[in-house]
């Protein structure tokens, strides 16, 4: 239920602009990996290449390989739709479907793909996913109300429920807590802790405490200057990264002495 991701010498482009260069990283199954680094260094860009969401942007392309349990996502003939069915994503801004109810939002992966599922299985899936996202108790009485009627934190957890309802192997999260209050943030961090039993999780965050709290391993990205490509500077166990990093830049960044 959970797979390993490796990237090999990955270069990521927006048209002519090389946004990220030479990323080689090995992400263990059933672990949480945090991407940290200053704004614009390409964390989101790398994250989006991991489930081929990058190419949704026009002109965007990738050079290098991303392996999911050894299978190259960018091999010719690979259907990005199949990739995304295995690698789910939670975005920085909560984006529930406005035309759908809470229930339908959770079932979106099923409903939108026209998959058949009995009513009782659907109910099961909704409850399981919402419980998984720590949202069930708050919304169980209003499953048929629109998802956009929830608070920001609830919407974000709804989006997580929606992502885990399709039972992906890997869950990518791009600053999932940046719009949330400390309590919702804590709820989501607890959730990540639980989800890691079943999923491989990659999370982008600007919050050092969050990275050190939730992640097993941390990757630090940096950029030499504007217009230059971002690079993976250091990748190690989170405890090592935050106590005895090998690279000076990492130490400066995690201790707040950056720039």
């Amino acid at each position, binding site marked *: 239920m959970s797979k390993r991701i490796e990237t090999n010498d990955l270069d990521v482009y927006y048209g002519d602009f090389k946004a990220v260069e030479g990323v080689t990283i090995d992400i263990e199954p059933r672990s949480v990996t945090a991407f940290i680094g200053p704004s614009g260094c390409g964390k989101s860009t790398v994250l989006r290449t991991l489930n081929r969401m990058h190419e949704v942007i026009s002109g965007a392309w990738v050079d290098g390989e991303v392996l999911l349990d050894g299978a190259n996502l960018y091999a010719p003939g690979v259907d990005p*739709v199949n990739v995304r*069915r295995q690698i789910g994503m939670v*975005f920085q801004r909560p*984006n529930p479907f*406005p035309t759908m109810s809470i229930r339908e939002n959770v079932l979106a*992966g099923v409903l939108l793909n026209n998959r058949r599922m009995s009513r009782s299985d659907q109910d099961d899936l909704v409850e399981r996913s919402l419980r998984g996202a720590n949202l069930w108790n708050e919304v169980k009485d209003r499953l048929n109300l*629109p998802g*956009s009627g*929830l608070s920001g934190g609830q919407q974000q957890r709804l989006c997580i429920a929606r*992502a885990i309802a399709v039972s992906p192997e890997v869950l990518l999260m791009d600053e999932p807590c940046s719009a949330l209050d400390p309590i919702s943030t804590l709820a989501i961090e607890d959730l990540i802790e639980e989800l890691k039993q079943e999923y491989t999780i990659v999370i982008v965050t600007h919050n050092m405490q969050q990275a050190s709290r939730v992640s097993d391993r941390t990757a630090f990205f940096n950029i030499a200057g504007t217009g230059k490509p971002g690079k993976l500077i250091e990748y190690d166990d989170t405890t090592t990264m935050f106590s005895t990093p090998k690279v000076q830049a990492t130490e400066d960044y995690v201790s707040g002495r950056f720039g």
Partner: protein
Amino acid sequence: MTATTTAPARREAANPLTAGQLPLWGPWALIGVALAIGAAVSALVAGASGTDFSIVAAVLIAYVLYLVAITVVSQQIEGGRKAADRLVTGVVVGAFVLALVPLVSLVSTVIINGAARFDLQFFTWTMRNVVGEGGGVLHAIIGTLLVTLWAAIISVPVGIFTAIYLVEYGRGRLSQAITFFVDVMTGIPSIVAGLFAYALFALFAGEGVRAGIGGAVALSLLMIPTVVRSTEEMLKLVPNDLREASYALGVPKWLTIAKVVLPTALAGIVTGVTLAIARVIGETAPLLIIAGFTTNMNYNVFDGRMMTLPVFAYNQYVSPGVQEQAYFDRAWTAALVLILIVMLLNVIARIIAKVFAPKAGR
């Protein structure tokens, strides 16, 4: 007791945030006074020059007086910012009322003139064998509905699919070319659309062809650009976040468009389509050419002449018989019916838009 009443009063006086304020009835009183003066001046002028009393002059004078008075008074009591606000409010409301005048006048004229024949017979009879008084427009109502329905059947799918292509798939030259030609189509005179439809159908059915479907083709030429444009705008309004959310769930692009993008934009699309229909339902020239006119009922759009409401009104007006008034009355009532149909369409569109609109939760 005195202490309790003076304490809040003192606090009020000391509040540095309060400023002078016109009482609510102030502007209304000024309007009343201005109207009175305007009427008096207008009456005086009328008396002096021996002309009739002019309401228009009275209102205009009153309006200008009011704008000046409210600005000056407000300047004195409330200060410059509020005075500017009152002046601009006055100008904006004036412009709004001015814009309303022709609309109200048009609707009331049509209602007054159309009321004469707004009876049961009008809606249940055709003009078959009717000379002089009586008769009805059932054949023209059916004709208008059928022709417009077919125009919608042709142009809504074409328009929506074109818009989907332009927004979701279109890149580079081809989409630029399509956008350009859609813009050009917007400017096609309706008579040209009619002639085109005639020429097209004459190829198959020979010279002198008349059929409702020809009218529908002509109208759809006029409708398609409107549908494309409005749908395009609505699709562009759908946030990219939603498309990405759907892709991230492993939903293919076409399903994302069909089940996320279109439903989200549906309310706007329906409104756009209705406006497009409302725009073409009153077209006369192309229908005159290709659908022709008849006094008989014709349910078959694919064969034979077909009467429509605008053509009916035109026809009654240009060639009245001996009892002229009966023909004019019918023309006005036909116009009234046309307006009612358009209104009904708008109401229906609003209901549909409401039902399908993304539910704003908060």
